[in-house]
C-alpha cells in the first residue's frame, strides 16, 4: 500500500438492510467502518449522538439531547415541532459497554417499543444490529403503516410536484 492511500481512498458505501422478522419486530443491520468501542461511544455520548441520530433528510431539528446511558438511566430528545416541541424519552434497560444497548420508547405511553442494539466487531469494522420490538402487531402497524404514513407519502408527492412546478416556472 502506498503512503497516503488510506486517507484518500473512498470506501465502498456500506449497505443498510431492514427485515420484518416477525409480526412485532423489525431488524436493521449495517456495518460501520470503525471499532465497536467508538460506535458504542457514538451511541451513548450525547454530544456525539446528536450529530448523527437526526440526519438532515429527516427534516427535523433537535433542540436538546440528554443521555444517561446506565441501566435505569433516562434519555430525552426534544425536537422542534409545530405547534409545540416534541419529546422522545425512555429508560436504558441494558448497557453492556461496546457490545449491547437497549432502551424503552415511552413517549407514546403504554405499548411503546423496546430498541435493542448489538455491536459486533470484525477486523476493525462493527456490525450494528438494531432490533425494534413492539408489544403487538397492531402497535408495529400503527407505528409505520397507518394513515399518517399515507399522508406523509402524499406530502412527499406534493413536494415532488412543487419541484417540477418550480422548474417549469423557471423556464
Amino acid at each position, binding site marked *: 500500500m502506498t503512503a497516503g492511500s488510506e486517507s484518500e481512498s473512498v470506501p465502498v*458505501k*456500506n449497505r*443498510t*438492510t*431492514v427485515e*420484518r422478522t416477525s409480526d412485532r419486530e*423489525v431488524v*436493521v443491520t*449495517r456495518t*460501520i*467502518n*470503525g*471499532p465497536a468501542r*467508538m*460506535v458504542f*461511544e*457514538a451511541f451513548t455520548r450525547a454530544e*456525539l449522538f446528536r*450529530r*448523527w*441520530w*437526526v*440526519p*438532515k*433528510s*429527516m427534516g427535523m431539528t433537535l433542540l436538546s439531547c440528554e443521555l444517561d446511558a446506565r441501566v435505569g438511566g433516562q434519555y430525552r430528545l426534544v425536537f422542534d415541532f409545530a405547534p409545540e416541541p416534541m419529546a422522545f424519552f425512555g429508560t436504558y434497560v441494558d448497557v453492556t459497554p461496546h457490545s449491547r444497548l437497549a432502551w424503552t420508547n415511552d413517549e407514546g405511553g403504554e405499548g411503546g417499543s423496546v430498541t435493542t442494539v448489538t455491536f459486533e466487531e470484525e477486523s476493525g469494522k462493527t456490525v*450494528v444490529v*438494531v432490533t425494534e420490538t413492539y408489544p403487538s402487531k397492531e402497535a408495529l402497524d400503527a407505528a*409505520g*403503516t*397507518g*394513515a399518517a*404514513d*399515507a*399522508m406523509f*407519502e*402524499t406530502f412527499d*408527492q*406534493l413536494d415532488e*410536484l*412543487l419541484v*417540477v*412546478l418550480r422548474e*417549469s*416556472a423557471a423556464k
Partner: protein
Amino acid sequence: MVQYITTRIDTSFAALSDATRRGVLEQLGRADASITELADKFHMTLTGMKKHVGVLEQAGLVTTKKIGRVRRCELGPRRLDEATAWLESYRERWDARFDELESVVSELTRKEKSDDRRKRK
C-alpha cells in the same frame, strides 16, 4: 402542464384538509368499506359521504368499484405496496442515520490516531 400540476396539488390538499376525509382514509387503511358503511360510521348521509369519497377519489387517494349494487372503497393504487413502501422508508431513515454515524466514527478514529502520534512524539 403547470396548470395541471397546480390543479393536482390543490386537489390533494383539499382532499386532506377535511377531518372526515382523513378519518375515511384511516378507516380504509384498516379495511375496505362500502359507502353505506362509511356513512354509518361517520354518522353522515349517503349523499354527504359520496361527496367526500368523490374528492378522495379525484386526488387518487381512494379508488372505488361497483360490485352489484354496492360501491366498495379502498385506498388508492399507491397503497398496494404499503408494506414494501413502509420498510423502504424505514430503511432510508436508518441508512441516512448510519451514514452520519459513519462520519462521526471516522472522525473519532482520525482524532485518536493523531492523538496517538502526538503522544509518541
